[in-house]
């Protein structure tokens, strides 16, 4: 592997990590507020098809991205109504959302197959984009990639340094206490869930407008589930989430590179190489669990439990 190809590999890794990062960041906020939404895959697909359809119809990728965010939010709203207002079981509702989203996106998308779109333009930053190594690596991406990085920073800052963020965390750790202080637990959770929907929608939009600019049924290929894993893997911290998304994206890409260059890694069959990202996640989890971080890995205490205000 030459130095140049290393840079190229890293650029590809950035692309692979971005949809995971969007979806996982959204879910992180949702789970910090105490809600578990397993419907990420469905929301991402609806976001992907909406972004694509609107872009084709209006020839504006910006409108497409906006529409995807709204579509994701609407799906999340359905989830919110069922789980927050009607106190339905969150696991079942999330799974239902995934099934619904897969079907709905396939239905809507059937008219858009075989239509190509322009890939999202790469933003050129004067001066920075021409730097020798850092230029192509860091400063030659499209708007959504930069947005994902900004979102990571934004979420981290929001959670730790703002009052609303603190309220959100409190709601996730102890909803009854938060309610007794006077915070509207249900409203906070609604907002968190909607944010999760917007982010999932953006992740889907990245897939259909930038990563592989086309519409294909079930094109998320399980990324929603990986995002769920990443949230737990990151122990609900945005910084670690960023690393996790890139680690996961990296391992997935690397196994393809290993195949393409050396006929396999140590002669292992392709399937074993494909297993690597998943095994890596489990190993890292087990290692962290036994180590000095033990005790700081706790999930938000109210995760998954419905809140029933006593009226």
């Amino acid at each position, binding site marked *: 592997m030459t130095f140049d190809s290393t840079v190229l590999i890293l650029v590809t890794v950035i692309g692979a990590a971005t949809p995971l990062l969007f979806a996982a960041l959204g879910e992180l906020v949702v789970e910090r507020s105490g809600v578990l939404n397993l419907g990420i895959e469905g929301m991402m697909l609806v976001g992907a098809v909406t972004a694509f359809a609107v872009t084709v119809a209006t020839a504006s990728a910006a409108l497409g991205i906006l529409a995807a965010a709204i579509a994701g939010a609407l799906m999340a709203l359905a989830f919110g109504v069922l789980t927050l207002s009607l106190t339905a079981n969150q696991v079942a509702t999330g799974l239902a959302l995934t099934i619904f989203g897969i079907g709905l996106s396939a239905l809507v998308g059937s008219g858009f*197959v075989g239509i190509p779109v322009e890939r999202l333009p790469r933003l050129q930053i004067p001066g920075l984009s021409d730097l020798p190594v850092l230029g192509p690596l860091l400063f030659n991406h499209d708007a959504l990639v930069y947005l994902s990085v900004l979102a990571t920073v934004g979420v981290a800052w929001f959670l730790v340094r703002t009052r609303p963020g603190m309220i959100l965390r409190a709601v996730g750790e102890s909803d009854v206490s938060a309610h007794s202080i006077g915070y509207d637990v249900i409203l906070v959770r609604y907002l968190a869930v909607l944010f999760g929907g917007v982010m999932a929608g953006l992740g889907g939009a990245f897939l259909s407008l930038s990563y592989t600019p086309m519409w294909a*049924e079930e094109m998320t290929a399980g990324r929603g589930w990986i995002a769920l894993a990443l949230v737990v893997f990151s122990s609900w911290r945005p910084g670690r989430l960023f690393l996790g998304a890139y680690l996961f994206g990296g391992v997935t890409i690397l196994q393809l590179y290993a195949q393409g260059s050396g006929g396999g890694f140590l002669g292992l069959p392709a399937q074993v190489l494909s297993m690597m990202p998943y095994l890596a996640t489990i190993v890292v989890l087990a290692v962290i669990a036994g180590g000095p971080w033990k005790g700081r890995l706790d999930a938000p205490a109210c995760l998954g439990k419905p809140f029933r205000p006593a009226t």
Partner: protein
Amino acid sequence: MRLHLSRRTFLAGTAAASSALALGRGVYAQEPLKVGFVYVGPIGDYGWTHGHELGRKAVVEHFGDKVATTYVENVAEGPDAERVIRQLASSGHGLVFTTSFGFMNPTVRVAKQFPQVKFEHATGYQTAPNLAVYNARFYEGRAVCGAIAGHMSQSGLCGYVASFPIPEVVMGINAFALAAQKVNPDFRVNVVWINSWYDPGKEGDAAKALIDQGADIISQHTDSPAPLQVAEQRGVHGFGQASDMAAYAPNAQLTAILDDWSEYYIQRVQAVLDDAWETHSIWYGLKEGMVKMAPYGDAVTDDARQAAEAVKEGIIAGTLHPFTGPIENQAGEVMIADGATATDDEMQKMDWWVEGVQA
């Protein structure tokens, strides 16, 4: 919406025929023949299933209201397939096409129970008095592509995005490599297996990996346009698969291998209508028109074009066989003797690689 409306028109006209008693014993003058299609993927995959769907539409157009077609998409291979095929057989369909290898055992089982219904299974190897097998010689198309690649590649390295190491894929890669090596004896092919027929994200990533490592020609045995899209973005060239993907890669696509099932499907439906259907196991290629090549892209040089045409004409005329000996595998053993050509059997069991292929 046009699609299901026209089907509704036919179904409205055949309401009487759809009673469970109609087992297709014979075709009466008025009753349209019901033809069923079982698809493994979505008709919108722009690849394998899309090709069969085009064939079905050709049947509809050709026969008008003498025929009523039904299709079921996204049928998982396994127990679900058997139920769907049986559903078609028991609801009055006289001819059923099952379009994926994994439908073989279910089709065989249902065919036994419905001897009056005719079945056609794609890419399989089991026949019965009422079950025929059909397949296409895609490797011929690969040879044409290989000839072009040999002329046009500067790095002498092709990146091949492949699905699974089954004989159909293996013979395609070998045929491609051999044809390219006739032009450039040092031509190499690097293969990345993505363990799926259709996963645009992974296909694109695999293409990026291959291009990053020096390939300037991309070929694929997977179904989405993603590898070609990547080729277009990176300024290299490639070949489309199962459909003409020029819309996705106007500069990159040199040509594409097209699956054209229309003529075959029309032939077989006509045979049933004429009560002349017989089982067979056919493998058609460029000569019979089941495999076609898309128009050459603008980037194709004159030399490459000539070479490609020569290969195509040779195959059609029968004077050129993509697997003409002597051919050795990577251990140096002679797999095809000097002067001999590979038999159909040898090709369908191919599990070895030629020199220059890294898989």
